[in-house]
């Protein structure tokens, strides 16, 4: 680092809940949430553009979906982050995950973690989304393989499952 940069380094301890687990990391102001999550081992958060064009790094921050590449780690301090692994896994799959598997919504799979988080935020917001709502909800998540159609159908199916769970619980 140059002298100028060395002087500027002001690191800060940041506490973040990631998928329910308390994490503590000391980082400078310019470190993004994406970088921090990946350093913490959350490799499911993908990096595709680093400037908010592709959505591969989308996570929930206090329930709202954000591009973690455009979120400074300092701004995530004291807040809770959910990644696709926090949503569920083989033993406790979220209906969105089950639907993505059954509908064949993942091809190369690189956009999938971010896509699922955007879909989760969408369903939290609009439990009965129209196709138009779904298209609007995903317009910041690029997919190059699928043509999105199976992603749409999986989200519609998951929405139905979630509504059924809601009424039976």
């Amino acid at each position, binding site marked *: 680092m140059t002298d100028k940069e060395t002087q500027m380094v002001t690191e800060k301890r940041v506490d973040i809940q990631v998928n329910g687990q308390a994490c503590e990391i000391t980082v400078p102001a310019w470190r993004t949430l994406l970088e921090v999550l990946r350093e913490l081992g959350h490799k499911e958060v993908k990096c595709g553009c680093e400037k908010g064009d592709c959505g591969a790094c989308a996570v929930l921050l206090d329930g709202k979906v954000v591009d973690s590449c455009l979120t400074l780690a300092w701004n995530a301090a004291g807040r809770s982050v959910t990644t696709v692994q926090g949503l569920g896994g*083989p033993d406790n799959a979220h209906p969105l995950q089950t639907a993505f598997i059954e509908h064949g919504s993942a091809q190369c799979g690189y956009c999938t973690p971010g896509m699922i988080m955007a879909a989760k935020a969408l369903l939290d917001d609009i439990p009965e989304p129209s196709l138009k709502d779904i298209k609007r909800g995903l317009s910041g998540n690029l997919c190059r393989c699928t043509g999105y159609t199976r992603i749409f159908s999986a989200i519609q199916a998951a929405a139905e499952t979630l509504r059924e769970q809601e009424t039976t619980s």
Partner: protein
Amino acid sequence: MNRIESPAAGTANLQLRQVGKPLVRTDSPTKVYGTAVYAGDLTMPGMLCAAVLHSDRASALLRHVDTSRAEALAGVHCVLTAADLPPSQGVMTDMPGQTGGLTKNTKQPILAKDRVRFCGEPIALVAAENAAIAEQALRLIDIEYEDLDGIYDPFDALAPGAPIIFGDDNVVASYKVRKGDIEKGFAEADFIVENTFTTQYQEQAFLEPEAALAWVDEHEVLNIRSSTQVVEHYRAVADAIGLPHNRVRLRAEFVGGGFGGKEVMTIEVWLALLALASRRPVQLVQPRERSFLSHGPRHPFTMTHRTGVSGDGKITALQIKLTSDAGAYAKLSPYILLYATVGATGPYRVDNLHIDSVSAATNNLPACAFRGFGTMQANLACEGQMEEIAKLLGLDSMEVRRRNFIHTGDANVTGQIIRSAVWSDQCATQALAALGERPTDTQTTRIGHGVACYQQSYGRIRWMKDSSEAWVGVEMDGTVIVRSAVTDIGAGQSSALAQITGEILGVPMDQVVVYFGDGAVTPLAGTSTASRALYMSGNATKMAASQVRKNLLGCVAGYFGVKIEQLDMCDSQVFIIDDPQRSIALKDCVKLCAAEGVHRHNLAIFRAPTSEGIDPETGQGEVFPDFTYGAHAAQVAVDIETGEVKVLKSIGAHDVGQAINLRAVEGQVEGSALMGQGFALCEELILKQGRLQTGSLSEYLIPTSEDVPEIKAIVLESRSGLGPFGAKGIGEPVYAPVAASIANAVADAIGVHIFELPITPEKVIKALREKESTK
């Protein structure tokens, strides 16, 4: 001759239990749970981060490259320039992975030495403690350029007196096709239709930028784990840096999209050099902007068709000129031009034919492989021309197509006899029918319907002498392993092998584990390119599994005292077909084999048909193993005031031979529908004096969820292909007609054809104005 007349033909596969079904792909859960590992996700203790310095001049002498300030930066482990490289000074960028046949000499410098030929050419490599230091080191490398005149247009490059960028004359490749009697054909024509079509650069824009990790292990083997379509690059890495082939191990992780962009070697050799120099593991993940510079986009083409037609729409003569912009290095341009040449007449039989094609070097980005590999550009011109002919003759364009379709048993452009089914008509008819009724025009919108057919090869060029190996074995508990070095680039390559093996051995596919993509320990399968992975590795896997089945059933036949033909396998049981109660569990069957010393595994090799090239004067000869046929249809609404085009419906109908996984096939059709829409309407790499103006995903626009029309896949199965169970390759074919169908739909809507892609709102308005002024 295997002439198949109708969709009813080929009923041999109807007993299939898994193949053809829309089963869950084996790679789906891990991708959906976020546990799938991509090359950029790997870490190792002591790992360094790499960064690459790309030229910001398109044509210049490198007067001086000074890395001393970068090297002095704390945390920098090594900085490499051309001066530090081994004497071989180049990396083979010819058709990767081939084991037979001749290669062209298309070596490209690993790092620019003395001169840069395109804006983005790599000049220096850095390995440092972390990515931030590596980036900072790049800024401390001092370069003194001396600008040279550049050429940015292939026609300028071919003009006499042009500065030389490649060879003696800037010609990277050229082909000639001479067939029939063209003068006679034109003399017989009632009309002659001539048009020139152009296409733009298209960027693969896979979501995962290039990423790899390299290190030297305890056995002095250089290991590379990479996002690549081709593990056989280990040989090219070894040759480039002077290591024996058996000292380089290349493994492909799940690839986050390839589409041809990860076919020619991208970053592997850079990491190999850095790992050797630093003796540390080194990882590179290209930032998106540098990803645009690290692989070759689709070639821009200029295509002129001069077509002689009789009054009833029959083509009597066709003269075609194709020119592609290769950019600064050859890469795969010669082969891509060959594909374009063979595909230049689309799915039509033309007996009197001249084709002259040339690929010229410029100081633009070197173009390379991209889904369709030249065929889709050539097809676009062909299908646009069909519409123009129909318009001139006042005929329905499908009628014109029908009068000219190639049929099974006919000779194609290069005189190769088509042996599999040609269902162009059925596919086009079904796709058009699925468009349904036209919505009515409004005051400001015009509705258009368009269709396009195609002929696209699958499998590699015959003189590559292509082969693929696969190993299948049954474990003692009755579970199954497949080993194949096939790379899994997202289309379900490894899952298909599980499904095929499960079918043959009567095991649910989720009990089959496929080890894939390891150049050292899985049998080499060739590349996941050229729509060949399923065709080649599917066949090899089916052969290996069938041999294992034969061995297992042989033991059981002895055990029950019946013939092998009386036995079948299903649900991990072996049973007597006529007496299913008499059965034996697969795991017990395996024990029988083990006790008798019978092989429970098999290594098979599948060889594609081969030939020795084409006649250079006439272009005649057998070029490809086989071809896929089908059609795409589109319904568009054009806003005649703003020129905006909205695709309403997008329907692909294809004869896939035999679907292995129906859902995966439909996924290919759907994905190609949107990628082709992007090519038709909004995707365009714009270069200005060789410098990229659209080098990020906010300037280079691929379609979003908001751009998605109603998409439908119609899957037809002739079971006439050369792949397993009669499958044909589909990854590229399903993409081939999409852009043409949209261009044709726009022409239908506004009554005038736009010959230059992409069809931007601006070009629509211009076309409408010109139409108005010529009235």
